[in-house]
């Protein structure tokens, strides 16, 4: 018996290890590349041992093409978009999940329908609208556009979390004469904490990684890091090492956020999966 168990563990570890390696390899390779000179980047056979250099980081942080202002742009846009999204998506998701009101189904579908258009088809209308209201190359403009795709996503994710909260809990709170809002604040929200964390992180990630809208609707003033990094691929040459260093810096905040919120993510994901399953 114990032999079989050991085997199963080993097999599991092997599969997990393989999966992890496939996922981690590009990231680790980029990490290595970010410490290489351009000559080492192109070396064949590829070098795993080399004299590391910090030049690439120095260049992308403090050089002529510094991405610091772009990291700031990304942070402002992603944070503002996330806060606004959550501010609307939490009550919105609750309403769709719990309340009864006219045209509920229709409004739920409408929210989802905005997700059905391919984003590339929306760029030109968005450009024209922003141009009319003077929103091109502004934080407000880009955040507003990000809300158009992050809100439906967040609302629908939040609906599923709200639906998981046992109705009895809410009813008990209402019986104790708590109003809707108080019940929501004191009873329901603590129950969906994990869901809020997961949604927040996904919304932030999407906004942070967004490229297509940013490149067209942004400009010199508002240029997120995803767009700025693209400039390391010039028509003359691809500066692989700097690109990798830029990518590492752009990933860092997201990875930190991920580590910080890992507990919530894992919990949130499993809870969402087994509907009505366990206690939280």
């Amino acid at each position, binding site marked *: 018996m114990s032999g079989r168990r050991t085997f199963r563990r080993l097999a599991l570890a092997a599969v997990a290890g393989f999966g992890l390696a496939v996922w981690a390899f590009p990231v680790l390779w980029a990490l290595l590349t970010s410490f290489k000179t351009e000559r080492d980047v192109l070396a064949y056979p590829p070098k795993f041992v080399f004299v590391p250099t910090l030049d690439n980081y120095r260049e992308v942080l403090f*050089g002529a093409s*510094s991405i610091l202002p772009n990291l700031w742009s990304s942070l402002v846009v992603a944070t503002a978009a996330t806060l606004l999204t959550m501010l609307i998506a939490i009550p919105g998701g609750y309403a769709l999940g719990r309340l009864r009101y006219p045209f509920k189904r229709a409004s739920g579908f409408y929210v989802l329908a905005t997700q059905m258009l391919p984003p590339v088809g929306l760029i030109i209308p968005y450009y*024209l609208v922003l141009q009319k209201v003077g929103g091109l190359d502004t934080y407000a403009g880009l955040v507003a556009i990000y809300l158009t795709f992050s809100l439906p996503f967040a609302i629908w994710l939040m609906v599923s979390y709200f639906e998981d909260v046992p109705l009895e809990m809410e009813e008990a709170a209402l019986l104790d004469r708590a109003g809707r809002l108080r019940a929501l604040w004191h009873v329901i929200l603590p129950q969906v904490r994990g869901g809020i964390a997961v949604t927040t992180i996904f919304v932030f990630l999407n906004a942070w990684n967004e490229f297509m809208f940013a490149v067209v609707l942004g400009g010199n003033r508002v240029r997120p890091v995803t767009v700025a990094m693209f400039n390391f691929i*010039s028509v003359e040459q691809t500066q692989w090492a700097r690109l990798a260093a830029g990518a590492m810096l752009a990933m860092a905040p997201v990875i930190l956020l991920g580590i910080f919120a890992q507990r919530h993510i894992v919990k949130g994901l499993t809870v969402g999966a087994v509907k009505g399953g366990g206690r939280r």
Partner: protein
Amino acid sequence: MDKPDTKGPAQPSRRRAIARGTALGAAVVGAPWIARFAHAQDLGPYQQGKVNWRQAEGAEITIAVIPASYFDNLIALAPQFEALTGVRTRFEKVPPGQIRQKALLDLSSKTATYATHAADPMYYPLYVSNKWVDPLDRYLGDAALTDRAWYAYDDIIKAWRDADSVDGKPYGIPYDGEVTVQVYRKDLYDAKGLKAADTFDQLVSNAQALNDPANRVYGLALRGFAGAGQNMYIYPSILRAFGGNWGSGGKVVVNSPEAVRALQWYVDVLSKYAPPAVRNWNWPDIADAFSQGTVATYIDAHSSAAVINNPEKSKVVGKIAYARWPKGPSGKRVTSIWNWGFPINAALNDRAKRATWLFILWATSAETQARTSWKFAGPAKRSGVNRVSLWRSQEFASAMKGAGDNFIPAALESLEQDTDVDWRPRVPQWPAIGETMATAIQAALVGQKPPKEALDEAQARIQQALKG
């Protein structure tokens, strides 16, 4: 008031502070020579031109360029332009894949965001048919705006001027450009007693002689990646060298017998003598491979000399030579006529237009061309200067000395003898045609479809695009 001005004043102070901090950081840490250089040079050579440089003082213009050293050099000198004219400039760097899209959006919506932009010459027919850009003969012919004797428009390389003109009228002024040439390893050629190819057949036999995949040396590389500016940048030269053309009188024909033969040749040489990944390579990848010593010959932009001669990267410095395109079966050599030119956005107001013209005049003048090339204090000396007189100058020759054997003669002869304005189909529908052709060429290169079938399908699609 100028439109771009309106955005200026009411910015939050924090953003301004950050912007200031960054600018300072860039000047101090990044490139101290930028600041030094900007003030060291005098404006005398410009003031010799009998133009009122201050006529648009106070205007602000935004210029979209691509991230490239030849534009970085220009941006570094912009303070000189501002001192000369009192016009403020804002540069926006947009990746090459997106600059066309952004310019089209801006022009078609008449936003007047970009006073001018680094324009793809193939887009002028589209711009002009919609009247999105101003004809520049007006500006060139107006003595208040241009001192023709000083500016010497005709000194600008003719092929590039033609490429930026529609029906004989200029709509853009070339700032920087390139020609495609043969680039080869003279050490490998010498070892086998080979000479640079004069015909397509010799190109193939050279490639065959040098192809040695077991030792990671491939005979020949050409751009294989799908894209209007990638495989559709090389294929047109092959087609024209096979005696093909793109049709006439508004009709576009892409599946002529010559076209099929040309594409078949492209498929054959790449599958036999090129690195297997070449079908996904754009030219930086080819230059990287060549600089690592794994490619014996490639045909691509003369400006790639900067990459393959970069001592930080390249292992083949000192072993490089250049030659014109070989002659195709029709006896013709056909190079590219690529250049980044500056048009004037027709949606601008009058003062902004004048400011933009002054900028174009300044950027494309012989003096600025020299200051961004051999006179430039930074490490990158531009090799795509826009004037014949500069190409022939001693200073340019010595700045390009390190490029390799026969660099300037090969490029200059190509510019003067091997250019053909109908190298690619110059019609307003080019964007769609370029992409359709790129897909068809790649389908053939990867063996998905035989050349004839790929081109027949492209023809059907292009017919649709021309109708619609």
